[in-house]
Each structure stands twice: as structure tokens, then as C-alpha cells.
């Protein structure tokens, strides 16, 4: 073996050793935290956390709970993911419906679980809750990934297909779908833990069994063991799903060629009709709501009509405005902290194989762990305060920030990298000249998803432990059965979330137009 070849192999080995080191570091930190009795002894050592799972008396209990939660998550992933893919295909194939489907997808992402949960439960029933919320939780990830993937084929390839008389459907099956596969799997990697989180959250709506039930009961009984054990099983399930999908992704890349791993492509442009369409969509949504109330003879106790919600909005705009301000402030702070951390970590990982090795195990764990399900755990560790809401939001943002930055840094075309190297550009130049511009489109997409997640996370966290904000307003009003106010808060959350989403969508489009022109 020649010198350079050996050093490359050496670098690879060093990388593997670093990953091993990262895992050891993670466990060691955990052990140390457990021994130090962090959070008043709430943090258990790994051994103590695993112990209940090994206890023969409880083994069956955890197995049943895991089976039930994993089943709900899998079903939710199948339904939500399937629907999302279908929606993305429809949006791609039927231009007339494109913007409507896009909006519906954004709506699915913006709809806060706190508000959706009760309605799902009231409409679909307690048994369907975990599956339904898991499906809602994955919908957006899969939709965005599929839509991106379907539009990732180069214009030149489309033209070749067109030149041979291939219709839309042919282009879809023979060109766009294969091209989309790696991106879809990437989306599923984020969706799988989200499905688990959704299932657990859904179980808080009165499920008979499941990891979520164990989490809540453990919390109420102030016993850390079942909480940690259930969280551990949950994270393990996420890790397995994540690992399997990473394997699939690797296989897909190998089969489809490494050349199509990344490479962002400009989303289809939207015209000046946006505002008009937005209004039309709102009118339609409100119409559907009114129709549901009237035709379904829905009790005002279950859901008020749009008119009553409107009255409440009109009567106390101040209350809504201050809640909006609070929630946006929290989400913004979380977005900033989490975003900077996520992007920074991704860059550090790119820069140093050792840093990557050390941090990746922790980040994979973070990615695979259904964070929403562990909000109570966060509250316990970080305390019941507004600060914890920001911490939770930051954590929710960190991951998309990291994942998309990482994907972006990998997306620089081989030809461009070589060009930069050939002129003597070092790593720093490569980074600044090729990688950052190539990563920007991905980053913009990640930012949009992260911003949406930040609002949703802030609202959920507020509803659990916040003192002000839209999440608080919703829960407060809901528990006192003040339905117009509760729904007013829910609608406001959705509107705020959509607004944030649209704002970052505009940023994304500008960045894409500049840095990912149609190839």
C-alpha cells in the first residue's frame, strides 16, 4: 500500500475509534451524572436505568408496553408516511393542486399536538389516538423529503424523458422516484423517532398501556426507575429504526450511485398569487370547519363554530397579541440557540473526524429519541421554569439544524470539490468557496423545518410548564372548557406557525434561486 493510501485507511480507523470513544464518553458521562445524583437523584446510572428491564417481574410489563407503542408508531409511520408520499406525488403531478397540498402539509406541521390531540381523541377515539398523532407527527417530514426528492431530478434529465415522448407518469416512475429514494429515506430517518414521540404523546390521552402510560405514571408516582426504563426502551426503539433506515440509505446510495446523495434543487417557484391563494385557502378551511360543526351536529362543548372563535378574537385582541409575542420570543430564542448549536456542531463534525466521532453517537441518540415524549424528563432535569421551555425548544431545533447542515456540507458536487482542490485550495477554502454555498439551500430548508418545529415545541412545552404564551392560553382555557378561547388560541398557534413557516419559506426560495439554480 502506498503512503497516502495508508494514511487514508488510518484516518478511517481513527474515525471509527473516535465513534467508539464517543459511545464510551456518552455512557461515562451518564454514569458520572447518575453517580453525582443530578437533579436530586433523578438521574440514574445506566445500570440502575436498565435494571427494571431485566427484572423478571417487570419484563413482561415493559415488553407489552413497548409492543403497543412501537406498533402504534409503526402504524402511524405507515399511514402518515404513506399519505405524505401520496400528497407529495399529487402535488408534483397535478399542478393545480400543488399549492393547496403544500399548504395542507404545512398545516399538518403547524397544528399543535396539544390542540389536535383532544380533537383526534374526540373524533377518532382513545384507541386511535397514538396512531393518529404518530401519523400527524411524521406527515410533514415525509412530505418535505418526498417533495424535495421528486423535484431533485435535473431539468436535463426531464428534458431527455420529454424528448422521447414520456408523459408525466413515466417521468415519475422511471426518473423522479428513483432519484427521490435517498432523500425519502433521509426524511424517514427523522420521521421514525417523530412517530414514536407521537405515539407516546397519543398515549397520554388515556391509553391502557404503552411506554407513554409508564412515563406518566412514573412521573406521578415520583419514581425515576420506570421513567428511565421506559425512556430507554423508547430511545432504543428509535435507535433501531434509525439504524435500519441508515442502512437502507447506505444501500440506496450504493445502488443508485453516490452522485445523487445530496444536491438541492430549487423548489418550484410560486407566483404573486400566493396571498390570493392564501386567502382562498383560509376561506376554504373556515368553510370546512363550519360545515363540520353544522353537518356533524358537533356539540359546542367539543368544538365551537368559527363565529364564536372570531367573537373571542375580536373581543380580546390584547390577550392574544401578548401571548403571540411571548410564544414567538420563546421560539425565536430556542431557534437561535438550537440553530447555532446544530449548525456549529455539524461544521465541527465536518472539520474534525475526531469531533465527529465523539459527537455523532450523542446526536444519533438525540435524533432517535422521541424528545416530545421526554418533556417531563426535561422539566425534571432542568426545572419547572420558562428557561426549560427555551431549552426544550432549542433541543427540538438542534437536530434539523445539524442534520440539514451535515447533508448540505455533503452536497457539494464532486466536480466542484475537485476544482477547488486542484487550484490549491485547502480545507478552509473548500469550505468557504464550495461547501457553504452548496449547503445553503439545504440549510434554508432545514431552517424552515426547524422554525416550524420551534413554534410547535414552544407551544407544547408552554402548555406543560410555561407561565405565558399561546400554549398556556390553550391549556388553561381548555381545562376550564372555555372552548372559544381554547380554539382561538389553537387557531392563533396555527396561523403563527404558518406565518413563520411562510417567512422562512420565502427565505428558502431566495436562497435556492441563488445557490441551487435548476441544473
Amino acid at each position: 500500500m502506498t503512503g497516502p493510501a495508508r494514511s487514508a485507511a488510518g484516518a478511517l480507523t481513527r474515525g471509527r475509534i473516535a465513534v467508539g470513544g464517543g459511545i464510551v464518553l456518552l455512557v461515562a458521562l451518564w454514569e458520572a451524572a447518575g453517580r453525582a445524583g443530578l437533579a436530586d437523584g433523578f438521574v440514574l446510572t445506566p445500570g440502575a436505568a436498565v435494571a427494571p428491564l431485566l427484572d423478571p417481574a417487570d419484563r413482561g410489563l415493559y415488553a407489552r408496553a413497548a409492543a403497543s407503542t412501537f406498533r402504534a408508531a409503526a402504524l402511524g409511520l405507515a399511514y402518515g408516511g404513506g399519505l405524505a408520499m401520496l400528497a407529495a406525488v399529487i402535488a408534483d403531478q397535478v399542478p393545480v393542486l400543488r399549492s393547496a397540498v403544500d399548504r395542507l402539509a404545512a398545516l399538518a406541521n403547524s397544528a399543535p399536538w396539544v390542540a389536535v390531540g383532544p380533537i383526534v381523541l374526540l373524533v377518532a377515539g382513545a384507541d386511535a389516538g397514538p396512531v393518529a398523532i404518530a401519523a400527524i407527527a411524521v406527515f410533514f417530514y415525509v412530505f418535505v423529503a418526498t417533495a424535495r426528492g421528486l423535484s431533485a431530478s435535473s431539468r436535463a434529465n426531464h428534458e431527455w424523458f420529454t424528448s422521447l415522448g414520456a408523459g408525466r407518469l413515466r417521468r415519475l416512475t422511471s426518473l423522479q422516484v428513483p432519484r427521490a429514494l435517498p432523500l425519502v429515506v433521509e426524511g424517514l430517518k427523522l420521521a421514525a423517532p417523530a412517530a414514536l414521540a407521537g405515539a407516546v404523546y397519543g398515549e397520554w390521552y388515556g391509553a391502557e398501556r404503552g411506554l407513554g402510560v409508564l412515563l406518566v405514571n412514573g412521573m406521578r408516582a415520583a419514581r425515576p426507575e420506570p421513567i428511565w426504563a421506559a425512556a430507554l426502551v423508547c430511545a432504543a426503539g428509535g435507535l433501531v429504526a434509525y439504524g435500519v433506515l441508515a442502512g437502507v440509505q447506505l444501500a440506496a446510495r450504493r445502488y443508485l450511485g453516490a452522485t445523487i446523495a445530496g444536491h438541492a434543487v430549487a423548489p418550484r417557484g410560486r407566483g404573486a398569487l400566493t396571498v390570493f391563494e392564501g386567502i382562498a385557502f383560509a376561506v376554504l378551511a373556515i368553510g370546512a370547519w363550519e360545515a363540520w360543526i353544522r353537518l356533524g351536529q358537533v356539540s359546542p362543548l367539543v368544538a365551537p363554530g368559527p363565529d364564536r372563535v372570531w367573537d373571542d378574537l375580536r373581543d380580546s385582541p390584547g390577550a392574544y397579541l401578548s401571548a403571540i409575542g411571548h410564544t414567538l420570543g420563546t421560539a425565536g430564542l430556542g431557534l437561535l440557540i438550537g440553530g447555532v448549536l446544530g449548525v456549529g456542531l455539524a461544521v465541527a463534525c465536518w472539520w474534525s473526524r475526531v469531533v465527529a466521532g465523539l459527537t455523532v453517537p450523542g446526536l444519533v441518540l438525540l435524533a432517535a429519541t422521541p424528545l416530545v415524549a421526554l418533556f417531563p424528563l426535561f422539566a425534571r432535569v432542568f426545572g419547572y421554569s420558562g428557561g426549560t421551555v427555551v431549552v426544550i425548544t432549542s433541543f427540538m431545533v438542534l437536530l434539523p439544524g445539524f442534520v440539514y447542515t451535515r447533508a448540505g456540507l455533503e452536497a457539494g458536487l464532486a466536480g466542484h470539490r475537485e476544482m477547488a482542490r486542484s487550484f490549491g485550495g485547502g480545507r478552509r477554502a473548500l469550505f468557504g468557496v464550495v461547501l457553504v454555498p452548496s449547503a445553503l439551500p439545504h440549510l434554508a430548508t432545514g431552517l424552515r423545518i426547524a422554525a416550524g418545529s420551534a413554534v410547535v415545541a414552544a407551544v407544547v412545552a408552554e402548555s406543560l410548564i410555561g407561565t405565558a404564551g399561546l400554549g398556556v392560553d390553550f391549556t388553561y382555557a381548555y381545562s376550564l372548557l372555555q372552548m372559544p378561547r381554547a380554539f382561538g388560541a389553537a387557531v392563533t398557534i396555527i396561523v403563527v406557525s404558518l406565518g413563520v413557516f411562510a417567512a422562512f419559506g420565502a427565505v428558502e426560495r431566495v436562497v435556492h434561486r441563488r445557490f441551487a439554480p435548476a441544473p
Partner: protein
Amino acid sequence: MGTDAPLVSVAHVGKVFGGRRRSVEALQDVDLTLRPGALTALVGPSGCGKSTLLRIIAGLERASSGAVTIDGAAPDVLRSRGDISVAFQDPNLLPWRTVASNVGLALKLAGREPDPARVGELLRTVGLDGFEKARPPQLSGGMRQRVAIARCLVTRPRLLLLDEPFGAVDELTRRRLNVELPPLWQARPTTALLVTHSIPEAVLLADEIVVMSDRPGRVVARVPVDLPRPRRAAQLHSPEFHALVDEVGDLLGVDRDAPASGDAPASGGGEAADRAAGGGAAGGGAADGSAADGSAAGGSAADDSAAAGARA
């Protein structure tokens, strides 16, 4: 042939690429007809709009003005029947499919029956036997372009649009292909438009040569190539051949400034001298015409000489 209704007619086509700050006029009032069964070559300086015109004919780009009809209808009609094949300047192969399946895919897209034998035969013809199972990223630039050529012949299209199909192919292979490919599409009469850099290649292959001007591209002249077919090497050394190469070269040169004369200090009377050189070369070719007769490549050698002389 002259009495046939044209298969393709391009009428007053103009194309302006509009940016926000600047716009480029790529084509200006282009008229063009392609006779059925004929091969028309399109020559012109780099950036003059050849690719753009080809894409407009294929219906892939919209003309800013004017219209294109194929068989009396919009390009889409013929295209949707899989009767057009385009070889783009970039090969654009699907990286996840093997070479053979990239070629086979064209049949499927055009709505033809799968025909592995034909696929194999074409790959052999373009010199890619043994690479049927390879994937495009594993090929050299010239090999990729040859896959694209095979891919576009496999469907036996009625209209063949070739955009510098031999740009990345070495001259030896190119000459071989120049000889071996035409019979493949002449078997079923195919109307073809070939964008090429090489005037001799154009004269060798075409029934008519359309010469375009520098940007904005206009049709400067249409030069019929009335050399008999099949074009035997002997004819290619004929004065008629060289006269044609000459003529086209002149037409191209007319619209251009005389090129810088580089390290030759005395550059006066370049154009006239060139023509003389071209004629001389042609004469030389003709003189040994009988000796070179056995070799088609020998014929095209003479073209190059003549072309270069004419085009200075």
C-alpha cells in the same frame, strides 16, 4: 426530394433569454425546413444559438417569436409518439442505471418493445462492448457520450436531433462512427438535424448545411450538398466536396473578424490566402484520390484539410 413537403418547418423563430438585469438575444428570425429523410447539418460559432434552436424544434424550449411545426403539427405531437430522439450536448445519463438499461430505457419511454439484441448491437457499434453493466459514473467522458448516441438511435425515430454528438469522442472513434452510424438511421429513412463543430463532418454526412451567424443566431446560408450517396471515399476527394467545404467555411468566415494570426506576423490577405490553401489541399487530395480510395477515413482527412483552409 425537393418536392417533398418538409417534415419540420421553422418559421421566423426568435429567442430572447431574459434575465432581470440583462437579456441575451440568442436567435433572430430563423427560417429552416428539414426535408423528410434528409440530414441537415447546422454549423455556427460557439454560443450562436445552435443548441437553443435544436431545443426549440424538440419542443423543449418555447420560441419568443415565430413557430415550429413538425408534420404540420406542434412538435409535441410527434414527440409524444416517441418519434423524436435528441442527443444533447451533455449526455445526461441516469447514474443509477447501467449502460445497457440507460439505452433500453429509451425504447420503453418511446413506447417501443424491449429489444436487448438491438441495444447490445448498438453498444457494440459505438465500441462499448463489455461495459453494458457499468454505470455512467464509471465511464470516461467519451464513453458517456457514446452511450448517449446509442440511446438516441435505439428507438429508430423519425426525427433525430443531434447536438454535437461527437464532441467528447476522440477523432479516430469519431471517424469510425461517422462511417458506421449513418447506415443505421438511413435504413429507416430518418430526418436528422446535426449540430457539429466540424465542417468536413457536416459535408460528409449532410444533405444540406445550414450556416448560422454569430449571436444573435441568424441563418446566413443554406448550402445543399448534392454529392451522391453512398458517399464513397473517392467522391470525398472530389473538387465538388472541397468546394463545398470551402463555401461553408467562407460563409462562416464572412461573418467573423479575421482571426488573430498568432505567431505568424504577416497576416495580410488572410481570407484570400485561406481559400487558396483550401483549394490547394483539395487539389492534393484529389491527386492521390485513387490511392486513398479504399479508405473512408482517408476521405474525411481531406475534408479537414479543405475545411481548415477555407475557414481561417
